[in-house]
């Protein structure tokens, strides 16, 4: 299993994909934090108030979207480029390949979370100074939110691998992910918030302590998001992985 994980890590390092998406994740988070600081300040909410900090710090996980897409490409990309055959010739017990991809993506997702959280924190602190406020570095909630960002980004990497395992068509898998997060859940939030809170993207927002109404507790969100990942990956292992390539 160690060799397989090392091979998957090598795969990830030897294309430019991961560098591009990591950079995009940082840019997204920094842009989101910048926007949140300006919007909060504009709306008259004090930056250092609980509400203000929640609004600003909960968007530090925005870059996780790029991590999710990277996870999809790590799994479904093997079919897109035709490397799946060589991979399965090397490792005919295909579930081991999926497990190795999950392990490597968890590490990469955690690393991406660390980088985006650090960049977001620095951005927020700098903007607070510009706005004449002092960033509350000693506030425990700040660090809890950033810990949530790490968990959120890591889980989104795993969710991406799970989705790309279940839906082997890379384009379709990405389309499903974006449509779900961007359209389906958005509609359900307004139509049926009591249901929407249990859906993956909303559960993710709970993990980063988003000040949206009706979200689950951070821990509840973590559990729900993990269950989705396990369920989708399980379905992929059961129904998709063994299929002919």
């Amino acid at each position, binding site marked *: 299993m160690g060799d397989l994980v090392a091979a998957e890590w090598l795969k990830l390092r*030897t294309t430019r994909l991961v560098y591009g998406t990591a950079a995009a994740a940082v840019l997204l988070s920094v842009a989101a934090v910048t926007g949140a600081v300006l919007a909060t300040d504009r709306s008259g909410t004090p930056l250092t108030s609980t509400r203000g900090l929640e609004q600003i710090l909960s968007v530090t996980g925005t870059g996780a979207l790029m991590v999710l897409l990277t996870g999809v490409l790590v799994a479904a990309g093997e079919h897109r*480029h*035709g490397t799946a*055959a060589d*991979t399965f010739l090397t490792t005919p017990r295909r579930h081991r390949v999926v497990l190795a991809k999950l392990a490597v993506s968890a590490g990469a997702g955690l690393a991406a979370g660390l980088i985006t959280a650090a960049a977001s924190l620095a951005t927020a602190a700098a903007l607070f100074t510009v706005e004449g406020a002092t960033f509350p570095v000693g506030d425990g909630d700040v660090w809890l939110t950033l810990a949530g960002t790490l968990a959120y980004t890591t889980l989104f990497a795993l969710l991406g691998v799970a989705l790309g395992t279940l839906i082997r068509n890379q384009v379709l898998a990405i389309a499903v992910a974006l449509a779900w997060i961007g359209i389906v859940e958005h509609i359900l939030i307004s139509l049926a918030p009591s249901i929407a809170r249990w859906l993956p993207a909303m559960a993710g927002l709970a993990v980063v302590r988003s000040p949206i109404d009706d979200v689950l507790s951070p821990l509840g969100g973590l559990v729900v998001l993990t269950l989705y990942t396990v369920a989708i990956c399980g379905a992929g292992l059961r129904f998709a992985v063994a299929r002919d390539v």
Partner: protein
Amino acid sequence: MIEVAGLTKRYGEHRAVDDLSFTAPAGKVTGFVGPNGAGKTTTFRCLLGLAEPTAGVALVDGLRYRDLAAPRRQVGAVLESMGFHPARSGRNHLRVLARAAGIEPARIDPLLDLVGLRGAAERRVGGYSLGMRQRLGLAAALLGDPPTIVLDEPVNGLDPAGVAWVRRLLRAWADEGRTVLVSSHLLVELAQVADRVVVIRDGHRVTEADVSSLAGSVTVRVDRPDAMVAALLAAGVGHELRGDGAISVPGCEPAEVGRIAARASVAVTELARATVGDSLEAMFFTATGGDGRG
């Protein structure tokens, strides 16, 4: 040794492979030939565990592929459907596979030399020609120094020198005692190197033969075919008068045919020896009912 027994692969109503049986023994090059769409690649995918047979088995050394202890060290394969990540270099492609299979990376450089890609190893595969991809695929198949080698249309995209190079490799591997199974839709590519041929069409095996059992033949044209046929009959030599007036004499040397013609006072206008490859080709077209245009 590869054994395929009763192999059937259905896609809906279509039987891509239908009750196919054949063997590819160690120490021999077995040519697997048939027109495009005959089921060659599907057979290979079943053999390599990439597709699940509907019925029957395809075994390597008595085991299903997925039951092999160290598949990459036991079987090396190149399939047409195999691809490469365009942004990954040739060397990194091999490094990934070696790593996953637990094969020492020291094997990579000699293999790059063997397939002539040492100079292009650091370049992204996206910029490789079809022939370079074939060579990289071959290097990947050889990573584990496998005793069984399975190649699907290995000379597609190679120039004539490359084709001759692959033929020499196939011969050398078989002479080392390896099992070599190689498919092609062009029989002439294999005729010079295959020890055995398995011909399939529409998923069925139509014939399986040792190439050594296919003797060459002599084709002769004369001014009086009737007299020549009578002379061959008198000499007890098997022959066939073809529609175009030429006489085909299997298993005979041109000199002998010439002597028979001289004794019968028949003037020879054309005397040609058909090679084993020509015989193979004739057998292939008879068996597949095709005209060679796939």
